[in-house]
């Protein structure tokens, strides 16, 4: 073994070698026969080299990856379609809901109200009639409400009566 390798090996144990130098050591110990005292060291470097040859065994494995990656590529297009479909479905539901709600609101108003008179004179007469009816009803209601004043009067009379009694009582006590 030449002195250069011995020197590199010493540096190697001290972790002072570069990647290139370590490569050189691996190559040396894998290609050359070494003396008895370095047999184990050579074995170590042979072990490192042999570890490097371990590979994923199966072709099946690679195919599986390709199928998986490619299928996920196809899936991207499909995903885009689904995403668009989702948005479209959402918009559709919203439009349908608005339409139905509007219809319901229209239904709840009787149609007669919507249709009014086309002749302005006739419309004026009808309006007057309606207002007269309201005013008549108000008048009637006022009469009826007038009856309530009876209660007020009665209350006043009672209050007067009681205050008179109280005065008489207090006067009697004073006497």
């Amino acid at each position, binding site marked *: 073994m030449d002195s250069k390798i011995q020197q590199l090996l010493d540096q*190697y144990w001290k972790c002072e070698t570069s990647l290139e130098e*370590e490569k050189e050591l691996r190559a040396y110990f894998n290609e050359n026969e070494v003396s008895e005292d370095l047999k184990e060291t050579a074995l170590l470097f042979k072990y490192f080299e042999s570890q*490097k040859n371990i*590979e994923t*065994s199966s072709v099946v494995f690679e195919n599986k*990856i390709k199928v998986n990656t490619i299928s996920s*590529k196809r899936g991207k297009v499909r995903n885009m379609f689904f995403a668009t479909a989702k948005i479209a479905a959402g918009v559709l539901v919203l439009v349908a809901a608005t339409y139905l709600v509007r219809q319901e609101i229209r239904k709840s108003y009787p149609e007669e109200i919507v249709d009014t008179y086309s002749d302005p004179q006739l419309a004026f007469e009808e309006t007057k009639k309606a207002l007269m009816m309201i005013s008549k009803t108000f008048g009637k209601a006022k009469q009826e409400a007038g009856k309530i004043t009876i209660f007020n009067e009665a209350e006043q009379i009672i209050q007067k009566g009681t205050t008179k009694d109280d005065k008489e009582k207090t006067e009697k006590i004073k006497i």
Partner: protein
Amino acid sequence: MDLEAFENRILPAKNKLFRFALKLLNNSEEAEDVVQEVLIKVWNGRASMNQVQNWEAWCMRLTKNLAFDRIRAQKRKSTDLMEIGFEVKQDEPSPHDKAEITESMQQVNRLIASLPEKQRQVIHLRDVEGYSYNEIVEIMEIDMNQVKVSLFRARSAVREKLIKINAYGL
């Protein structure tokens, strides 16, 4: 990143990812599962990963994290099993190791396997895969100092044990 770039830049790293996962998990089936998961994750997230500079180191880191997730899940499972008194699966070399490593190599394999977790990872990344210190920092998510210390300790331990093997044939 398109399919071509994926096939040219990411797929060739699959054996490195596999070896790293195998080192961590000691089970080739699980390691293949992890690698597949990594590749699919990279493929699916390729649009948002344009800022990644070193893809390979990035994939290695993802491999490490996914492998650790699995180890944690296994630990939970195995403690559950222990509680109800089942035999817990022994850590034995995978068929890969058995087939490819000769008897004397197995001695070295055991030696490396006996190192603490971090040292085992560092020595694998450096001496088997040939990553630079900076890349190892990125992959293992620890600082430069820790990487250097771990590698130094790993190599010292290996050296010591090799000397013992040489002297006593242990």
